[in-house]
């Protein structure tokens, strides 16, 4: 099914998940390859979040397998997957509001710079830990805000921090759930550039409503409708795919101009 | 040291002085005045205070509520002994609180007089020269009932008690005089629904029931038994049939025979005077707990006439001689300083109004001494 020869970092094979009668994930197979941004699009209720949840591990599929670097992670817990290098950002920000930016990122660094069952050394004086965290914070350009409690951050900054937390894991790939949601023009601009710069080291599976962003960023797109992948291919292919147009016609979250102008 | 200042004010506030004087004897009373079962503590206190007032004695009594919690009782004991420097401690109602307080208290050289609890340990191995039990050893009333029922020609009693030390003491005591029972049940402590037990009794071929279920447990059992359709005669110690419990059980209890070391209609001058005074002051009929508090106070007073508590040996000797008019008539101490006394049988009869009452019907066993005296080194 792949039209590219680059080797895959994550593979999802024949994933099924249903809630009662509703088939939320119906025979989904897709692949994320090194150096690319793979966008997963689809109208509301297409089952994007369910799919993400299964990839992240907070939801167990009824059938099918998920591979990370050819290793089967289908049965692993959220935490275990994170350690294996699956970085994730949430649709609704999931940061610890009262804690500082650095504190939020340090937790992620902790997992990769050693065990969390160290009861003695104070984290404040843990040079390695702080350095690792600050590196990630720097990547998302929040270093000057490192000591600010998250509750005082702007919405845009929180988005950036989410990405920063994921990066602190030194992940093999990023799972981004609508990172652009609610960002102003400036904010989404900054984030777009960040992701652009990231994708070479860290491939990204992106779920996004903002079609501008999708078509600007994504090298490869899968279209999810009623839990099924109805189309898959390069951004260009998808842009012209009648199925997709049909699926999206009248769907508010994709404005028609995107599809006409070419 | 604000704490200190406050506390002085406190102890000053709660001291109940009968006669102002230079150095009155200090008595600390730790008893249960709040929560479940507080009517026992209240009666002990009222009986005790009545005696001190009638004698118009030179006493200073500090009364504290233990809320039926052992560690609170213990910490109150510390306070009364170490801060208020009382000469004598008394008042505890429950065996488990007594076990928490008494051993260390008496070892520390303070006298303790028990107005109610009589755990077997304190009568036997752990007996102490400074510990006097003015009420009874826990087994006594049950032994007496075992003896009485045997004499009454009963063959197959069904016996029950809660599963805790006083409960096991009760059944052991009963069996020590009666022999094996038809059926034996240990109920859950604090259990209030006895449908299952009553069904078992009905299924057995018992000819009578003996139970020791203090407080609310007894109230619940009697009511449920009364409406169970079972008609076996019921026997028990006085604890489940004091005037206050009877007030709560109502006529369901009529006909029950119970053993007590005292009865308000017991015919002796001291008792007559006590019952009359108690009714006059508190407008209710005294319970055995009140009588025990009253006797405890009078024992202390009688001893105080002979010696000061500071002179420990003399005072101990004075206590031991038990030279006072007990409302129970004959009363003397055994070598382990637990009473040797008659145990009477009372029957619950219809009283005036809705509330039944106890009527003295005879003597169960005379001059009963507890079974643990031999284990006591005194």
């Amino acid at each position, binding site marked *: 099914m792949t039209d590219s020869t680059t080797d895959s970092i994550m593979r999802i094979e024949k994933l099924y998940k249903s809630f009662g009668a509703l088939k939320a994930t119906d025979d989904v197979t897709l692949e994320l390859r090194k150096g690319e941004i793979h966008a997963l699009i689809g109208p509301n209720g297409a089952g994007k979040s369910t799919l993400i949840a299964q990839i992240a591990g907070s939801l167990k599929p009824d059938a099918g397998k998920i591979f990370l670097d050819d290793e089967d992670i289908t049965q692993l817990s959220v935490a275990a997957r994170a350690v294996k290098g699956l970085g994730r950002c949430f649709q609704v920000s999931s940061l610890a509001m009262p804690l500082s930016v650095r*504190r939020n990122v340090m937790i992620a660094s902790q997992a990769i710079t050693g065990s969390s069952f160290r009861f003695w050394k104070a984290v404040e004086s843990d040079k390695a830990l702080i350095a690792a965290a600050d590196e990630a914070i720097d990547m998302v350009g929040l270093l000057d805000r490192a000591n600010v409690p998250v509750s005082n951050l702007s919405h845009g900054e929180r988005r950036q921090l989410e990405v920063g937390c994921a990066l602190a894991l030194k992940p093999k790939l990023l799972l981004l759930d609508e990172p652009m949601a609610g960002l102003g023009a400036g904010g989404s601009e900054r984030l777009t550039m960040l992701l652009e710069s990231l994708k070479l080291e860290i491939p990204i599976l992106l779920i996004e409503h903002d079609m501008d962003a999708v078509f600007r960023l994504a090298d490869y797109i899968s279209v999810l409708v009623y839990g099924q992948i109805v189309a898959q291919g390069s951004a260009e292919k998808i842009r012209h795919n009648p199925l997709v147009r049909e699926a999206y016609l009248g769907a508010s979250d994709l404005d028609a101009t995107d599809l006409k102008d070419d | 040291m604000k704490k200190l200042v406050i506390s002085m004010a406190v102890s000053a506030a709660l001291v109940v002085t009968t006669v102002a004087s230079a150095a009155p004897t200090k008595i600390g009373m730790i008893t249960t005045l709040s929560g479940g079962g507080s009517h026992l503590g209240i009666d002990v206190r009222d009986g005790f205070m009545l005696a001190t007032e009638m004698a118009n004695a030179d006493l200073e009594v500090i009364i504290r509520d233990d809320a039926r919690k052992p560690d609170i009782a213990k910490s109150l004991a510390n306070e009364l002994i170490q801060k208020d420097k009382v000469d004598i401690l008394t008042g505890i109602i429950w065996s*488990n609180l007594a076990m928490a307080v008494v051993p260390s208290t008496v070892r520390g050289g303070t006298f303790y007089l028990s107005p109610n609890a009589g755990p077997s340990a304190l009568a036997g191995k752990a007996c102490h020269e400074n510990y006097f039990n003015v009420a009874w050893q826990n087994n006594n009333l049950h032994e007496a009932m075992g003896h009485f029922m045997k004499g009454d020609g009963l063959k197959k009693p069904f016996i029950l008690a809660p599963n805790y030390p006083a409960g096991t003491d009760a059944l052991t005591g009963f069996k020590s005089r009666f022999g094996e029972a038809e059926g034996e049940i240990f109920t859950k402590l604090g259990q209030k629904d006895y449908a299952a037990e009553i069904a078992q009794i009905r299924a057995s071929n018992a000819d009578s029931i003996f139970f020791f279920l203090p407080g609310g447990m007894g109230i619940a059992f009697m009511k449920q038994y009364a409406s169970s359709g079972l008609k076996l005669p019921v026997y028990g110690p006085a604890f489940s049939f004091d005037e206050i419990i009877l007030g709560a059980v109502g006529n369901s209890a009529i006909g029950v025979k119970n053993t007590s070391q005292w009865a308000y209609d017991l015919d002796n001058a001291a008792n007559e005077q006590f019952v009359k005074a108690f009714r006059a002051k508190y407008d209710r009929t005294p319970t055995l707990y009140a009588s025990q508090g009253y006797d405890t106070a009078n024992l202390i007073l009688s001893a105080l006439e002979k010696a000061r508590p500071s002179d420990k040996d003399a005072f101990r000797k004075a206590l031991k001689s038990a030279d006072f008019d007990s409302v129970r008539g004959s009363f003397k101490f055994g070598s382990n300083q637990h009473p040797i006394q008659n145990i009477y049988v009372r029957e619950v009869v219809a009283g005036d109004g809705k509330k039944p009452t106890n009527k003295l019907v005879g003597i169960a066993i005379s001059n009963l001494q507890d079974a643990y005296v031999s284990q006591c080194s005194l």
Partner: protein
Amino acid sequence: MTNSNVSLNQSRNMSRESWVNGFLLVAIVLAPVIATMMDEVYYVNLSSRIIIIAMAAVGLNFALGFGGMVSFGHAAFFGLGGYVAGIAAYHSFEGTLFLGLVPATDQMLLIWPVALFVAAIIALLIGVISLRTQGVYFIMITLAFAQMIYYFSISLTTYGGEDGLSIILRNSFVVGDSNNPLQFFMVCFAALILSLWLTHKMVGSRFGAALTMAKLNETRLATAGIEPYSIRLVAFVVSAMITAFAGALFADLNGFVDPSMLSWHRSGEIIVIVVLGGVGRLFGPIAGAIAFVLLETFLGGFTDRWQLFLGLVLLGVVLFARGGLIGLMAGSSRHG
């Protein structure tokens, strides 16, 4: 069930709070010394009582305050510690063997590790099951386990059943005379300081960071590659051990152990003390214990209805003094 107060975000109030803490420590250590000088031994024992109860609360505070686990069963661990000490004292006094095979000791330094070990094992068993549940269910299942152990202790006829077990001779400490009130107080005080210091260290450590995150935002912790369950489990066990340590001292202080040490009322009281002092504040339990024990003692002196007034005071604190006494004194209410 978590409230997002952690001493981490209190920086602006830190200095003031640490002043309050310092004052508390000085007060609690000076009181018995002065009392001894004034030959008021009662206040020495009262201080020991406060210290020990505070320490039990320090244990709960670690799970509840820093980990957000509202355990309604910590009395069980308090009691377990007490029974280990009590049973040891009993056997070494009687000169008999525990279960007829293990020789007993009256050395606190030997008894404490056993108490901690027993508590740890039981806490592990309870935690493994209970931590699968959340919120009210966690509160209730911990209560259920505590009740189970409570009824077990009542059925321990060898060790007095409901009457409990009196400790004729207080277990002894390597140096000094543990029967001397002031010296025993000092032992307890040292134990309290130790538990506070350990708590402080652990909260500041990597483990503490993870625990804090488990309380504030479980998903964040998991996505960061750390299993919230195992973090919580370890914290629960540690917390139980501290409380059990306090229990062992409590037994020696009172000279007896009995099932009421494990009653659900006691669990409630330990929670009360933690909240009274200020949830998730290192010295909260000390403030709480001082307030609670003094109320208990002196209200009892003023009136037989002291429990009524105790209730009113507690109610007032919950409703109007959020952040507990420390919060009140340090002038920072906790952020609901």
